[in-house]
């Protein structure tokens, strides 16, 4: 393959007769903005979430010519764009793409970038920037977005010359999606967007000298891990989103089925293993299930797969699984020993390491050990689950709403949750049959995440039902995205669980601040009327007898629908591991 350097006249001829030069790389004069579009096409970008503005106008102008090849979703706020891209990435397994203008447009991406960084979501965000000669002059709508976003991006870069665009975007997509995924921000100055340059095609990036997305798998560690697992009497698996990101659900299932080990999930790992799998023993962490939390401190071998021992999962580290040998499988070497010391580290992509490990395992089962999980589950059911799902009170509980939703969707829906009590209840009680079905802001805990993320989730999984479960507080943080739903006609079911409080803060104030409810009592507008103003149908219910029919109506509705369910004001989410305590000190009430 050779590069043809041609003069302007030849370029015109060549562009019109590309087949004549099929063996050569065609060199054409294109603008930086067109090069961005070409990069997107080559990377398979189908959907872009964004908001135009002065400094990104040339890119939007180029997009106008590509509008039949790529869909652009005009959001109502840049934060909505990036959360939508996160939802899209999490249901489609592809890289989410975002456009924003300079200054306030770019800074409005900050929350979503931080969210995507901590939850390892692959994103490529393109921000417009002022002309290069104005950089550093406090020009109109100029912010130093590169330095602002450095700690919350996997990689970022400022383009000031159009010649850089093809290689920088190729690198951006490669970095975003490879290894442990993450968000990348590319800031392009306006002069680079309009600048014409000799464009000789787009080459995807597969290698960067200084970047090793996957560590080399060390077979001796796999061997050591297998020996420890085979000798274990009470082994326990905890798994996280690494299973989903590695597309290793099948390999993970084979691993636990061969080893016969009970497995519990973090909320980011939820849906990687079907809810009804006999070895699925529930949720870990602060509002997780009783048995997996208690038995973490009784197992003799703890096998962590693609999870990072977040403090919400471990509670007090000095009292976490001290009796256990820890085998940690992770693609990110920096996660090994970060919080919990590993007896054996298994570096690598779990899609690669799990089969190697499974191959060395003896077929086993641990009936007595598994029975312990079942016994403790019965205690949890008696103490709180039964009451939550079958309340004797007049007020509805969040748990019973999720239970009826499960019955109607058969575990096939994508559930997108916001942050707070409803999130914990949804994660505890929602049932899933397939992976990439639970979309939530796990690490950053971003209120306002769910509504825009649900829009993106639907674009990423168009044949699936997407239900956004949102609290009254979080909904009001990004409710302007109802306008996006109205305009693009996306079908999102919005289920507001309204307890007229900032529920989780109130629960903590009740438990740890002597019921001093400091500024958590929340007045809300008429959500149904509000939705109607955006041409979205809906209703509000407060009686239990209306619940099933209302959920059925919501699910059967051909377009988006908003259902507000008034739930008990002072319901608490239990069990709970109090901050600063051990996971085995989990309280049932």
């Amino acid at each position, binding site marked *: 393959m050779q590069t043809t350097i041609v003069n302007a006249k030849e370029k015109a001829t060549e562009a019109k007769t590309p087949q004549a030069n099929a063996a050569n790389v065609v060199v054409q004069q294109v603008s930086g903005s067109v090069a961005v579009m070409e990069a997107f096409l080559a990377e398979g970008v189908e959907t872009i979430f964004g908001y135009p503005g002065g400094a990104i106008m040339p890119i939007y102008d180029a997009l106008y010519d590509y509008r039949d090849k790529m869909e652009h979703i005009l959001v109502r706020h840049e934060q909505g764009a990036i959360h939508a891209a996160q939802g899209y990435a999490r249901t489609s397994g592809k890289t989410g793409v975002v456009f924003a203008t300079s200054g306030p447009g770019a800074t409005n991406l900050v929350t979503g970038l931080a969210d995507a960084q901590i939850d390892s979501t692959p994103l490529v965000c393109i921000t417009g920037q002022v002309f290069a000669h104005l950089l550093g002059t406090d020009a109109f709508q100029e912010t130093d977005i590169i330095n602002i976003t450095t700690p919350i991006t996997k990689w970022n870069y400022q383009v000031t010359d159009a010649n850089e665009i093809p290689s920088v975007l190729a690198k951006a997509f490669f970095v975003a999606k490879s290894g442990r995924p993450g968000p990348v921000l590319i800031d392009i100055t306006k002069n680079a967007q309009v600048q014409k340059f000799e464009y000789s095609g*787009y080459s995807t990036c597969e290698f960067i*000298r200084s970047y090793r997305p996957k560590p080399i798998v060390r077979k001796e560690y796999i061997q050591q891990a297998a020996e420890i697992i085979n000798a274990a009497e009470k082994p326990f698996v905890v798994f996280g989103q690494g299973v989903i990101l590695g597309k290793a659900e099948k390999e993970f299932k084979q691993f636990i089925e061969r080893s016969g080990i009970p497995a519990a999930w973090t909320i980011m790992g939820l849906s990687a293993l079907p809810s009804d799998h006999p070895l699925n023993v529930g949720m870990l962490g602060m509002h997780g299930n009783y048995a997996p939390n208690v038995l973490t401190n009784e197992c003799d071998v703890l096998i962590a797969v693609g999870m990072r021992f977040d403090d919400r999962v471990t509670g007090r580290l000095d009292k976490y699984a001290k009796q256990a040998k820890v085998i940690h499988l992770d693609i990110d070497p920096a996660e090994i020993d970060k919080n919990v010391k590993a007896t054996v580290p298994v570096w690598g992509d779990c899609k690669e390491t799990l089969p190697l490990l499974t191959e060395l395992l003896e077929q086993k089962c641990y009936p007595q050990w598994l029975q312990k999980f079942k016994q403790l589950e019965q205690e949890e059911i008696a103490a709180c689950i039964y009451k939550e799902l079958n309340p004797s009170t007049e007020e509805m509980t969040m748990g019973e709403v999720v239970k009826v939703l499960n019955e109607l969707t058969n575990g096939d829906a994508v559930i997108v949750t916001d942050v707070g009590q409803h999130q914990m209840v949804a994660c505890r009680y929602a049932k899933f049959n397939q992976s990439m079905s639970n979309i939530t802001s796990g690490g950053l805990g971003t209120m306002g995440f769910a509504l825009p993320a649900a829009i993106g989730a639907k674009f990423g999984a168009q044949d699936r039902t997407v239900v956004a479960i949102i609290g009254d507080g979080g909904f009001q943080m990004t409710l302007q995205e109802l306008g996006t739903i109205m305009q693009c006609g996306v079908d999102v079911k919005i289920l507001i669980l309204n307890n007229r409080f900032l529920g989780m803060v109130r629960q903590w104030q009740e438990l740890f601040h002597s019921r001093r409810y400091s500024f958590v009592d929340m007045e809300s507008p008429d959500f149904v009327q509000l939705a109607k103003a955006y041409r979205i149908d809906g209703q509000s219910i407060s009686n239990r007898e209306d619940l099933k029919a209302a959920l059925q109506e919501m699910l059967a509705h051909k377009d988006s629908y908003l259902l507000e369910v008034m739930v008990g004001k002072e319901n608490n989410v239990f069990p709970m591991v109090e901050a600063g305590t051990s996971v085995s000190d989990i309280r049932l009430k």
Partner: protein
Amino acid sequence: MFKQEFTITIYTENTIGLLNRIAIIFSRRKINIESMNSSPSEIDGIHRFTIVINETEEVVRKLARQIEKQVEVLKAYYNSGDEIVWQELALYKVPTDEIAEKVKVERLLREFGARAVVIRKDYTVFETTGHREETEKLLKVLEPYGLIEFVRSARVAIIKDSHGFHEKLKEFEALNPSGELVTNEYLNQQEEVFDV
């Protein structure tokens, strides 16, 4: 675990903003950097950072892994003082008349291994290199003679047990060779939008 002095050596691409990206890893954890040096290495296009901090080994090990996570970082090593050969450069500016009249310059230079860099009527600049305590000694001697200015560089260090990074780099590249170039299949279908 006790805190001690560690020297972190980082091999990186030479790109804008990387200094900030690395510095943030320390500042986010509220770790003070004692000294930081950045300069080209023996390999074209590869820079070498030398960073000195006081921390426990456990913290330093985690920091090194976080640094290595950065896309443009090739490798981060950390070493205690006895695992490296290190030097700092110091410059001392003193009034020439004072130093000429009251100090036996020749003896001074010999005793401290110093070198006169500039000799002017009004001032003289000496240079020494060595460990902190060595450069500090000359500072103490010169202070009574009207020391005008003093500056000490960041540490530069060579790891004793190392065969050079360029061999390691060759290994990296052998393990991950560049892929074949892929030309954008859509390029030639888009002539209507190209301004030719």
